[in-house]
């Protein structure tokens, strides 16, 4: 099982979930330093074999090198959990072009390549599971997260299409669409900044990882964890798009302020830009 973004909160939860099922792991993330203790922990706790491979997935050359290594080592996979992703919250005009393209490179470009390659290096005797991290944000056009939300929309549609296309070949492709999860102190602050609603939507990543694998094994195309998120989705689908965008804009402007403070992005000017459009 290959897991990208393995050292992140959700990545670690997936590593533990997969290892607890007796699956061997191939973990990748930016820094080797963060992968090694995780690998040792998983080996000790679950007795599985763990390989680690640091890789900057935004860099096409680094991705190519990773797959060359895979070919050389003769590893074959029965799954890919694509958790690597970045998010930059805040005004579009205050982000540098590099930052914005970085989101597309990792969330879109790397996602496509990893999905394509894992099929090439699959274990032919087993069913292949591919789990791609989309987001609840993938369902909506979200002001202040325009590029991020659109990149997650890409992941969502991409995964849904591949789900049908690859089904006959014994491949299950599933998009995971979580709301904000309490993984890092910054995320927890973000959840608290959203008040009651944020807290209602927060789920334990251990449960999310376990349920995600169960849904993928059951052959689902999309999994939205949490009853509250599913409810939001239902309501969001009933309302006209323009109304949803307006509501989201207000929500992020009003309640998101403390979060943006911690990221030290000035807000006042941005909301003017948004409304004057």
């Amino acid at each position: 099982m290959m897991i990208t973004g393995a050292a992140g909160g959700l990545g670690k939860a997936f590593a533990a979930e997969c290892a607890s099922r007796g699956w061997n792991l191939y973990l990748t993330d930016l820094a080797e330093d963060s992968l090694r203790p995780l690998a040792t922990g998983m080996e000790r706790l679950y007795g599985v074999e763990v390989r680690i491979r640091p890789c900057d997935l935004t860099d096409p050359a680094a991705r190519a090198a990773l797959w060359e290594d895979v070919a050389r080592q003769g590893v074959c996979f029965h799954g890919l959990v694509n958790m690597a992703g970045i998010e930059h919250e805040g005004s579009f005009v205050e982000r540098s072009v590099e930052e914005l393209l970085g989101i597309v490179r990792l969330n879109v470009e790397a996602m496509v390549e990893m999905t394509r390659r894992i099929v090439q290096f699959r274990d032919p005797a087993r069913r292949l599971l591919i789990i791609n991290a989309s987001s609840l944000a993938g369902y909506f056009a979200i002001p202040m997260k325009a590029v991020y939300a659109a990149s997650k929309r890409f992941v969502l549609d991409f995964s849904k299409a591949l789900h049908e296309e690859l089904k006959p070949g014994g491949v299950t492709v599933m998009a995971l669409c979580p709301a904000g999860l309490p993984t890092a102190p910054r995320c927890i602050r973000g959840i608290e900044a959203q008040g009651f609603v944020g807290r209602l939507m927060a789920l334990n990543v251990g449960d999310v990882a376990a349920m995600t694998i169960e849904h993928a094994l059951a052959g689902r195309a999309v999994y939205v964890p949490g009853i509250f998120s599913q409810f939001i989705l239902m309501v969001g689908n009933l309302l006209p798009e323009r109304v949803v965008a307006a509501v989201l804009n207000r929500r992020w402007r009003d309640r998101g302020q403390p979060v943006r403070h911690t990221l030290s992005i000035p807000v006042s000017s941005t909301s003017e830009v948004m409304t004057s459009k």
Partner: protein
Amino acid sequence: MTANHDLTGKTIVVTGATSGIGRAAVRELAGRGAWVLGVGRSPERCREARDAILAEHPDARLAFAVADLSSQRQVRKLACEIRERVLAEGGGKIDVLINNAGVVPGWYTATEDGYEMQFAVNHLAPFLLTYELMPLLQAAPEARVVTVSSSSHRGARIRWGDIMHRRYYHCLLAYKQSKLANVLFSAELNRRLGPASRVRAYAADPGLVNTEIGQKHTSGFIEWFWRQRRRRGATPEQGAKTIVFLASDPSVRGSDAVYWKDCRPLPPSRYAQREDVAARLWSLSERLCGISWAG
């Protein structure tokens, strides 16, 4: 009830030393003349605690080391640092190790080793640190390992099927399990060391104390719960009493008891006294830390 035994010449290590019970214990022990090495997670808080205690006890012999006990790498690095400093300044032995640091995150959180935060910080860190410092403890004429447990251990069981509480995590259940592990660890350590050993382990129940535990990185109901709970709690100084007592009182040595509350021995829960459970937890903990006490 606690006599103020002079502790000059004693070397004492305390984790979680920058706030709550740990800080109160450091103040008291250093005030009585012991050389105290406190461990904290943040350099600023260590400095702040050090300055505050020195303001009260200008002659106190005090040192602080920074480590994040959720990381086994850092626990090992900390042990090396403690070893060096104890050899240089602390007389080359540790008389008392106080495993006090504890956390209660509101959500399931994995450490860098992929373990659940409470199990890692509240149980595995003391287990590993005690192992690493055992040679220094054995170098003292008689040494004590005091691990801060809680009456929360009552009613808890070890969740063998999912010891990391990945599924259906509830911070209070994970907390209860970790405090139960503290009692099982202390009892098993004594069994393994044998009655003739110069080192003895104790689990201290500080009672309900008004500290910041349960309020860092939690929110909503959980934070409210701990806030209500701590309202009825005693001051950190009162909470530190049993710990200081176990660390300093000569009469403790005469008792076989493991679990202490209000400076008196008290039987822990029946489950906490089970030797089979303690032995099983011990070998699992060895595996998770990659160590073997026998060898």
